[in-house]
């Protein structure tokens, strides 16, 4: 994708998020029990679903890399991990801010919150491996394994509210616990957030391509210079 196309896609994503904001703040009704603070739900849950999608990209990229040693798959996995971490941060922090007025505390060690924090730590670890290790096959293979096994935590996060008795509420969307206007606002926000996540991954992928090309130049340039010096002699 060219830079121009990426910028156009980013502008489209921002426009779609503004549409989602319209649905969240103007269309969706105010919750009778929680009041306006319940509107945090729309971006909080959509960000969590976007993070699941990003980590699925890391999983697929890791599998393809281990199978074919394809550099593009490794770059895609790296892009998915960064963007997934951004969305997990948004999920965690927005959830904490929502928890304060409803539960009376920012944090409690219940299954959903703890497993989500573990998810954040796994992918922060994945990115630390990439940053601290020498770039190359070994680092990519190791990171792919971490990305594949790390994904095990995604279903744990998702089903934690049904597997364990938690303070975090259970699934409301699939249990038909929301009025239709709230459901519409949620689905619009989710689609817009997923589009934003896809655009962010595409931009990050471009960054990874350009970074790899710059690193290759740094390695290749002295080799060319030394071979030219040898020829001149």
């Amino acid at each position, binding site marked *: 994708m060219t*830079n121009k196309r*990426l*910028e156009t896609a*980013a502008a489209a*994503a*921002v426009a779609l*998020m503004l549409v989602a904001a319209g649905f969240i703040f103007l269309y969706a009704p105010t919750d009778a029990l929680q009041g*306006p*603070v319940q*509107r*945090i739900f729309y*971006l*909080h849950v959509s*960000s969590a679903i976007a993070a699941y999608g990003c980590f699925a990209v890391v999983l697929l990229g890791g599998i393809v890399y281990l199978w074919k040693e394809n550099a593009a798959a490794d770059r895609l996995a790296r892009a998915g991990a960064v*963007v997934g971490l*951004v*969305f997990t*941060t*948004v999920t965690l*922090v*927005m959830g904490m*801010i*929502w928890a*304060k*007025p409803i539960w009376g505390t920012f944090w409690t060690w219940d299954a959903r919150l703890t497993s989500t924090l573990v998810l954040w730590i796994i992918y922060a670890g994945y990115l630390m491996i990439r940053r601290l290790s020498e770039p190359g096959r070994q680092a990519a293979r190791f990171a792919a394994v971490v990305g594949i096994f790390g994904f095990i935590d995604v279903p744990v996060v998702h089903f934690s509210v049904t597997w364990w008795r938690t303070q975090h509420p259970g699934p409301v969307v699939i249990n038909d616990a929301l009025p239709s206007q709230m459901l519409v606002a949620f689905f619009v926000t989710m689609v817009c957030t997923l589009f*934003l996540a896809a*655009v*962010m991954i595409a*931009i*990050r992928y*471009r*960054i990874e391509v*350009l*970074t790899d*090309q*710059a690193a290759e130049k740094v390695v290749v340039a002295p080799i060319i210079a030394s071979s030219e010096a040898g020829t001149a002699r």
Partner: protein
Amino acid sequence: MIYLLTAYGFGVAMLGGYLVWSLLRVRELSRKQ
């Protein structure tokens, strides 16, 4: 209301900030190439 504004303020700052930063980074890396 303050919690709602703080939560969305953070969400917008994080997602918008990352989006803008990544677009600037692409421009910078493209210029260097």
